[in-house]
């Protein structure tokens, strides 16, 4: 659905970099751009949004061409059907939540979309408050809703959750997935958080120095070998303790702490702070209902 071949020479404090990227994203896919700072992730989003003009290349979404250097096509941002959410919420401080959303309406657009969005991201109680009275997570929910007012086909998310604490992040991730599905969006996320990427994405583009290193499903990008275990989580090693003839590795997965028995040869290359996959078979875990 999104086909893009973009080429641009970027200049930054670190020097000159050639961005040369080809994207082929299916309609309805949730794609993440991953890679070190300065790899070209944000520039790629800005180019898709029309905020930055490539030196050459083409960008088309469905049957519509947004950019084609040779044919001299370069649709302005307002005509591209995109929603854009940044780390910085950039809400109007003097307007209520509802007014912030209404401001994004196009002329003659049906206002029902505002109520629908307020309902889907659960802002009913907050709709008459000013942004400054809201928490970071609530403001980001408003920013997400505002990005969807014009009913975009493509949602661009530039590290929208990186300023939030882990609880808020997890909730916002759920809201993003909810609107992604509800509005059949094609979403491109820039993120560094491997747990977040695995939870949200169908496909990853791994970028470095302006080039795509790898493309694939999250599990195949972040692990060397694909495990058959159905019970898999990504976590951070927070402790390694030696027992007499083995080790116990403590891993933080989301907000839960789990412990795994390991042998010496498994922990030789492991240190605190490393990301690991914790895997078991579907046959081993037991379920216990939590009584409310």
């Amino acid at each position, binding site marked *: 659905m999104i086909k893009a071949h973009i080429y641009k020479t970027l200049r930054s404090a670190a020097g000159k970099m050639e961005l040369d990227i080809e994207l082929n994203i299916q309609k309805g896919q949730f794609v993440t751009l991953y890679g070190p700072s300065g790899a070209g992730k944000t520039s790629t989003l800005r180019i898709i949004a029309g905020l930055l003009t490539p030196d050459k290349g083409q960008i088309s979404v469905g049957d519509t061409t947004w950019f084609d250097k040779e044919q001299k096509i370069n649709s302005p941002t307002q005509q591209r059907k995109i929603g854009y959410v940044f780390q910085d919420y950039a809400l109007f401080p003097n307007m209520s939540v509802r007014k912030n959303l209404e401001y994004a309406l196009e002329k003659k657009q049906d206002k029902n979309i505002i109520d629908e969005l307020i309902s889907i991201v659960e802002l009913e109680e907050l709709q008459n408050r000013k942004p400054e009275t809201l928490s970071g997570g609530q403001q980001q929910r408003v920013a997400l809703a505002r990005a969807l007012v014009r009913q975009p086909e493509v949602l661009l998310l530039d590290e929208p959750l990186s300023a939030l604490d882990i609880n808020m992040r997890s909730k916002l991730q759920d809201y993003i997935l909810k609107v992604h599905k509800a509005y059949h969006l094609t979403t491109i996320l820039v993120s560094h958080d491997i747990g977040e990427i695995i939870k949200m994405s169908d496909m990853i583009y791994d970028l470095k120095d302006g080039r795509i290193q790898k493309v694939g499903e999250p599990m195949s990008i972040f692990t060397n*070998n694909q495990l*058959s275990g159905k019970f898999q989580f990504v976590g951070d090693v927070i402790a390694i303790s030696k027992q*007499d*003839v*083995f080790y116990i590795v403590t891993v933080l997965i989301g907000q839960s702490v789990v412990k795994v028995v390991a042998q010496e040869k498994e922990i030789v290359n492991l240190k605190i702070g490393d990301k690991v996959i914790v895997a078991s078979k579907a046959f081993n875990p037991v379920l216990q209902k939590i009584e409310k």
Partner: protein
Amino acid sequence: MNVFSGHISNIQVSKSLSMISVAIDNAHILKAILVETPETASYLKEGKQISVLFKETEVIITPEEEPLISVENKIRATIAIIEKGELLSKVTLASSIGDIVALVTSEILEGLSLKEGQNVVAMVKVNEIMLSK
């Protein structure tokens, strides 16, 4: 983790489950049951190179030569090294497919009088074996 590589020699599918036989060498086939089928996992193909993984804690050891027991995977081995801990001991078993490490209670090690040099059978249930590409 115990890791052996081999190739898939047989696949039996029933609904969402598959029983995968992995030939480690001509004499040793290890079986694993997965909640996966060749339709859901592209690596499930006969002849495909694959690794078999199982945890040390899931290895059962018996001194009996032909144990009557509901465990599918059995490998003949010799106890090479015993490292005793207070509650658990690490037992390294030498077999024709390579070393297998087992973590068993120190109590049962004494109870069965298992000693270095002794011939045993190492066993692993099909639901404890994971496959890795």
